[in-house]
């Protein structure tokens, strides 16, 4: 326990803050629009189209550290990412797509492009 990067108390505070903040993002709509209150049409429409846009954003978010102009030019991400897409289109199996993609990526960054 004494080899933590920050103190025990600080670690607990971080976890509590992350938990409370995460819950806040989930509970806000239910506070803004309690049962029985009408949801504005714009908000309703936005709620329908935002999730796919946000998932697209998250894919890029995960790849933000890739530098396409310097070695290895984002090749491990490109190869493993394409593999995930192809496997998923062919098999539609979450575990297979995620599992194989991750293992291939780990092999690529640890050996081929190390």
């Amino acid at each position: 326990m004494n080899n933590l990067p920050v103190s025990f108390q600080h670690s607990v505070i971080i976890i509590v803050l992350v938990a409370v903040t995460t819950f806040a993002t989930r509970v806000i709509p239910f506070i803004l629009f309690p049962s029985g209150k009408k949801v504005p049409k714009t908000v309703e429409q936005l709620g329908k189209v935002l999730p796919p846009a946000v998932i697209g954003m998250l894919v890029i978010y995960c790849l933000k550290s890739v530098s396409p102009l310097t070695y290895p030019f984002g090749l491990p991400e490109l190869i493993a990412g394409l593999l995930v897409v192809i496997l998923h289109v062919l098999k539609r199996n979450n575990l297979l797509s995620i599992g194989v993609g991750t293992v291939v990526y780990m092999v690529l960054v640890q050996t081929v492009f190390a």
Partner: protein
Amino acid sequence: MILEKQNTYRAAFKAAFPHTIPVLTGYLFIGIAFGVMFADKGYNFIWAGVMSLLVYAGSGQYLAVNFFDPSVSLLQVVFLTFMVNIRHIFYGLSLLDKFKVSGKKKPYMIFSLTDETYSLYFLTKTPPNVDEGKFLFAIALLDQSYWILGSIIGAVAGTLIPFDSTGIDFAMTALFIVIFVEQWLEKKNRFPAVVGVVTTIISLLVFGRENFVLPAMIAIMTVLLGKNRMDNKKGAKDNE
């Protein structure tokens, strides 16, 4: 009476379990990856389990691993967590109606609203002989149990068997790619999906790695609201 109630919950879990198998597999994998990364930082399986119990957020917990560092302020912890999870606001917006059946279980239903659980609510139909509130609760509880289990396995493995985990965080990228592909194959969501990718890339190029999320969110909302307004106008004109 008690027996009858048990049977109903039992029926709900029995009906829900098969639907949660894709999440079971996905969560075990990325949960293990989280546990390994957290253990790498010096936090054992108890920490990982408690965090998965109290926080329960895939990308949020991946990001949070970086918070356990003297250089990160508590204000940054709150801000970054809020930004990475801000999408959840929109999940709740589309569940305002559905959660009315949840009664006393509603706080937990809101707490456990992850990407995967959210998508299951829309992919699955409650069987006619099962109470909907209990069915949705069963999905939520099963999903979180997979997540906690995965993170504990990962932390134990990461502590006992030291191995090079470099690149294991790609599991999260792969998960989002999988959700993205699923949405893409459904066709109807292609426009917002493209908007999400393109505006985020532009925002990343303009604002850089540290500051691109908020501008990207604003740009996405602006474009999608603009498109909505145009569609509404077009619809109004077509009706004339």
